[in-house]
């Protein structure tokens, strides 16, 4: 049993939770995830580790209420318990050798972009962060992201915060201005990651995206999370979740997202925000 230490409402549909899980916290690194199950009849779902505190033995998860399981998770209050919480799973973000990086987050994907940005920032890299939301009311983690980047550009689809446009618009502007990044790191809804990858391909900038497909075990056992990368089948849970955005078979990835839509209950980290 894993106790909820702290709960914060980031926006009407996104929640922050610190969970007591000392063994996970001890090993956690940016880019990794946990598999959790709220209660006995609950589904096993993957959630990315948004932050961790090794001393307190806590792991932060940030989730959007998009399906049955995330809604159930959101009913827990501080002091309540999550039944199962296993991790850290997946490979950590590769931060070595990156001098200048643009970290791009879309919606609740910022919950994953944030720890990646933090890891790059703490390694001494120059971090430009671009985050996008549908409107001003949905902006999350603004202070946190500002603290781990040299420049933070927050974009809204409707312009309600004063900066209208998609993350790709801002990224294109920066690339056009001649910013030279060693890496673009993008995480958010699949169409957004695809658009970022297509844009950066034109500029020849290496791009890593974080896939968060359907999975049940997180240890390479089910193959439900398979992604075709450079013509090879990879399992996001053990080979990823981060892959070269220029090599992903995006058409397939988009279709696989709908796998259990018919059967629904399916809870996912990324929905449109």
């Amino acid at each position: 049993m894993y106790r909820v230490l702290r709960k914060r409402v980031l926006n009407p549909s996104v929640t922050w939770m610190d969970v007591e899980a000392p063994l996970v916290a001890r090993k956690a690194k940016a880019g990794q995830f946990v598999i959790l199950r709220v209660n006995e009849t609950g589904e096993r779902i993957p959630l990315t580790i948004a932050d961790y505190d090794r001393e307190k033995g806590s792991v932060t998860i940030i989730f959007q209420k998009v399906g049955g399981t995330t809604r159930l998770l959101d009913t827990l209050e501080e002091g309540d318990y999550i039944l199962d919480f296993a991790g850290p799973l997946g490979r950590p973000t590769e931060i070595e050798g990156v001098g200048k990086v643009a970290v791009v987050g879309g919606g609740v994907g910022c919950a994953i972009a944030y720890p990646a940005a933090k890891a790059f920032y703490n390694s001494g890299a120059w971090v430009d962060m671009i985050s996008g939301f549908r409107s001003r009311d949905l902006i999350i983690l603004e202070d946190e992201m500002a603290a781990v980047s040299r420049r933070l550009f927050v974009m809204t689809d409707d312009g309600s915060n004063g900066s209208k446009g998609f993350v790709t618009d801002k990224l294109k502007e920066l690339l056009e201005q001649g910013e030279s990044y060693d890496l673009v790191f993008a995480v958010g809804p699949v169409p957004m990651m695809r658009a970022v990858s297509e844009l950066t391909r034109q500029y020849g900038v290496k791009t890593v995206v974080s896939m968060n497909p359907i999975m049940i075990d997180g240890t390479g056992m089910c193959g439900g999370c398979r992604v075709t990368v450079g013509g090879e089948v990879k399992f996001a849970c053990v080979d990823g979740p981060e892959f070269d955005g220029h090599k992903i078979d995006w058409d397939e990835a988009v279709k696989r997202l709908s796998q259990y839509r018919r059967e629904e209950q399916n809870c996912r980290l990324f929905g449109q925000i």
Partner: protein
Amino acid sequence: MAINRQNQKTPMPEQRPEERVSNFEEVAHGYTAEMAQNEAARCLDCKHRPCVSGCPVNVQIPDFIKLITEGDFEGAYRTIRQTNSLPAVCGRVCPQEVQCEAKCVRGIKGEPVAIGRLERFAADYYMNSSTEKPDALRQNGHRVAIIGSGPAGLACAGDLAKLGYEVTIFEAFHAPGGVLTYGIPEFRLPKAIVEREIEMLREMGVRIETNMVIGKTLSVDELFEQGFEAVFIGSGAGLPGFLGIPGEGLVGVMSANEFLTRINLMKAYRDDYDTPVRHSKRAAVIGGGNVAMDAARCAKRLGAETVYVVYRRSEAEMPARLEEIHHAKEEGIEFIFLTAPVKIHGDEDGQVSALECVRMELGEPDQTGRRRPVEIEGSNHLIEVDTVIVAIGNTPNPLIRMTTPGLKTDRKGCVVVDENMMTSREGVFAGGDAVTGAATVILAMGAGKKAAAGIDRYIRAKSEGKEI
């Protein structure tokens, strides 16, 4: 007692096929005491005990059968349990026809003694009626860590606990049992039975820690740092193989592991659980082993009108247990032999629409002794399906070998062990599917037992002079 000369096995009552295809309850009901005694009386109690030599865990078969004829059912159970820590499981899932029963003298003229059914009877009888608690074991103060709570790990834990070791099992999932829990369906092996078997190990002092992904949450080296003197790797063969044919990324194509885990571990077939699972109308299962039979029969129970098993060799080469093939046929599963998939077709939404196959013929025998299937050119044809479940085998999970420096594995990722089941790392032992690649429950148990003996020798040798 007079020998029962009946040439056939005493039939075991079963749910009727037309009834059971719409539920997940156990297919076979098991013998009554009367049936068991009738069947036990068929045993000739041969002096040379050929059946015992066919048992990977050396169950003293004629002894327990004799106790059944005498009506000492609990005694029969205790006899089995001396060498087999999971009798209720083995009685249900062992391929007896190629093990103990294959050696039975009664099988020469007629059917062999139904050893598996008798084992099951003794185990079920004991579990339902006995109030015995295992004797308090004297602990020897030495600690052993076991990775994985499947058949290999449980057998290893059981033997070590009996020898007085303090055993902790680390399980990656939220529930113990390994393949017994996530793989084999309820209708073949009720989970309550697995839980009771595991409970008995707990009563012997074995600790089980769930949600512990060794290689991630803790490494093998960290287990030694925590004071464990030996580690047993029984992490199984959990990495599913795919066909490597076009269309495998389509929606509706999945590994049997995924399909079965959703159903068995996550109980997706029950309304009160949240996990979704694919309900198909027409499903094709690729493969000819027990996993393929389980997947096909699950698909049927979830409401599929037509379920095909597509296998590239002929029926004679199928590795599945005879009983499973027989049950699957009774349940209306359609077998398509000598046929291999070459492509999966999809519709505009990326959903599976058909399986393209070629016909095969059998050529010369391969390394396994089975005749190699050879493609008949120009025999391509389509089978209309909405779901394809791939059950062509599993290989060992790479997490432990990736995170344990110095652990030798072979080309297929199987852990290499010596005659004591010790790996290339001192104090690290391994057994079961992690070593052999996908095999059977009972072979994994045999390996777990052998490793327990190896671990005992190793720790004794290390603490020589000191009393254990």
